[in-house]
């Protein structure tokens, strides 16, 4: 029962570590230059990493926010239209994300909506909002000069952007493992009814998670726009995909109850290393999309619970030869 492969497979961050090893091996043989500049990869992983770290607490609760990409894009737009110096603008952007998160959270907790469906709606609406903020095209930030600081190495050879990523990683990690609220998140994702019956205020915890997700997605969008010096209203599409990929590879279980900040961060870093390597190799930009999509697909179908349910149903099929009363499908579709 406790064989080594099984224990390995049950480790939350195992798949992220595996992917990182595979990517490093691939880079060693084809693009060794990438490995000599880890700061570049770290910087590249920052935006997706922050989004993914925001998604992690929510996924642990068994919910998902599909609007993170649109929130990130719209947050870039907020930087274009918000008044005041850069820090105030960033505050506005994050606040915007938190409000969107609250709306998502209310739709889920008050109306009992499935989070996939509720956030699909906000995703579409906010895509339009992002275009409205920037007048339908990439717009230069009023404080573009201050934002450039974000990509230049500042401290210990690591860019501000990466420091924000590391800070978010530490905060989310500590929150999930060291606070009462963080542990509640796991309890809710593991068994909502049980969590409710032991007195956890599930709706308010869910709203908190949505607000954190929205706020961090907005922060990521702001960081991205600042390092580019402009806000691209269509930037959000790949952010969602990469963010969810990073979290899922990092061991976050979409049905809830499992996930870790460090796993998610490793997932984001592996994806970034892959992207940088593909860039160095001169691959077509669409190759990067294909690889990210493929990684997400593999990550979601190699989930331990999914695989064990598959072997279970496979065994059933064999058993059914004798008594064909049982069926292979027992649990709910999807999340």
């Amino acid at each position, binding site marked *: 029962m406790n064989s080594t492969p099984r224990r390995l497979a049950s480790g939350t961050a195992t798949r992220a570590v595996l992917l990182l090893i595979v990517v490093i091996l691939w880079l060693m043989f084809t693009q060794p230059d990438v490995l000599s500049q880890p700061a570049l990869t770290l910087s590249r992983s920052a935006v997706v990493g922050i989004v993914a770290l925001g998604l992690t607490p929510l996924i642990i609760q068994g919910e*998902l926010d*599909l609007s993170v990409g649109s929130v990130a894009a719209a947050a870039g737009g907020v930087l274009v239209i918000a008044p005041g110096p850069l820090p105030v603008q960033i505050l506005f952007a994050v606040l915007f994300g938190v409000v969107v998160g609250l709306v998502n959270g209310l*739709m889920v907790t008050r*109306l*009992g*909506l*499935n989070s*996939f*469906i*509720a956030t*699909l*709606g*906000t*995703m*579409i*609406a*906010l*895509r*339009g*909002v992002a*275009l*409205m903020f920037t007048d*339908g095209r990439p717009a230069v930030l009023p404080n573009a000069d201050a934002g450039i600081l974000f990509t230049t190495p500042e401290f210990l050879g690591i860019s501000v952007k990466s420091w924000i990523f590391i800070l978010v990683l530490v905060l989310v990690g500590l929150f999930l493992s060291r606070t009462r609220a963080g542990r509640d998140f796991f309890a809710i994702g593991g068994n909502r009814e049980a969590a409710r019956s032991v007195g956890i205020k599930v709706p308010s915890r869910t709203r908190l998670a949505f607000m954190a997700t929205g706020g961090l997605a907005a922060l990521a969008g702001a960081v991205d726009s600042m390092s580019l010096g402009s806000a691209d209203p269509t930037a959000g599409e790949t952010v*969602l*995909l990469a963010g*969810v990929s990073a979290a*899922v590879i990092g061991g976050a279980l*979409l049905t809830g109850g499992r996930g870790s900040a460090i796993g998610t961060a490793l997932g984001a870093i592996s994806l970034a290393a892959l992207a940088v390597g593909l860039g160095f190799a001169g691959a*077509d930009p*669409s*190759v990067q*999309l*294909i690889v*990210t*999509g*493929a990684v*997400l*697909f593999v990550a*979601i*179908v190699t*989930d331990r619970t*999914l*695989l064990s*349910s*598959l072997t279970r*149903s496979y065994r059933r099929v064999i058993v059914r030869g004798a008594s064909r009363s049982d*069926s*292979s*499908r*027992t*649990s*709910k*579709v*999807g*999340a």
Partner: protein
Amino acid sequence: MSPTAMNTPSDTALLEAAEAHKSARRAEWIRTSGVLIPTLVLLLAAILFIDNFATTSNVSDLLTRMSFVGFVAIGMTFVVASGSFVDLSVVAQIGVAGVTVIALQDHGMVVALAAGLGLCLLFGLVNGFAVGVLRANAVIVTLATTTIGTGVLTLVTQGSLYQGTNEAFAAFGKDRFGFVPISMVLLAAALVAAHVLLRYTAFGYQVKYTGSSPRFASVSGVPTVRTIFLCFILAAVGSWGAGVLLAGYSNTAISSIGLGYEFDAMAAVVIGGNSLFGGKASIARTALGLFLVTLITNVLLLLGLPYQVQAVTKGLVIITAVVIDAVATRRSSKAGS
């Protein structure tokens, strides 16, 4: 609810049952009027206040656009009804179908059509396998497959625009009976066929049963895995049809032609009053929603509003429909149905 467990119905039980029935009826009313009233109001307002609305060319445009979204929405209805939320990979499938039917015309129309259908079915198989057999989340699976598909298509075509060479196909794509485009005639036939399939056949019951409760469906002998598989296959066929008609209409194709159709189709399904929680679905409702969505798009276009306003409006309409669905579902579940 087995007969042996039931006591003789007392007065209170009867009253409760009557109350439950009333509540369920109210939920149904919310669902239906939630789409019918806005449609009629908008239609009336458009006819009265928008000069170019009630013209042959505009109605023809509206119906053409409606037919493209419609084919996707039919497949989407089955996917949603079976409890899988959404098939986002229709974007890639429409792109693949459109590009192959135009780019491979020199090898003969049969090859061009079959190649596209084959590739779309491949999407359906992969989605069906991941969602049906592996029970992975449909939203994430189809997000992954649409990204992979669009990526490969962009890589192969290098983003180039293909121009059709087959004149018969181009003529067919633009053909109309009076002001009714041929694609609309095909859609009408497809809607009727799909309605019968979902409402009156064993497969239709299996789809809805799987969507409302996969566990109970499975226990009562419904082949749930096969049902989910077939729903994704139907979505693939629908997307293929939409892609072919879309390419035929303009006689050109580019890898990104499918963009936005997933949301319009999704909107048609939800706005029509189909439950996103699976189980409750009807093609007639989808057709209603389809008309409203297309009407909204058309009106926004005629009003000359910028794209971003259209996007926000559509998003808000979807959210409203989703909220109505949630309220209606709550009422009917309170009613114990």
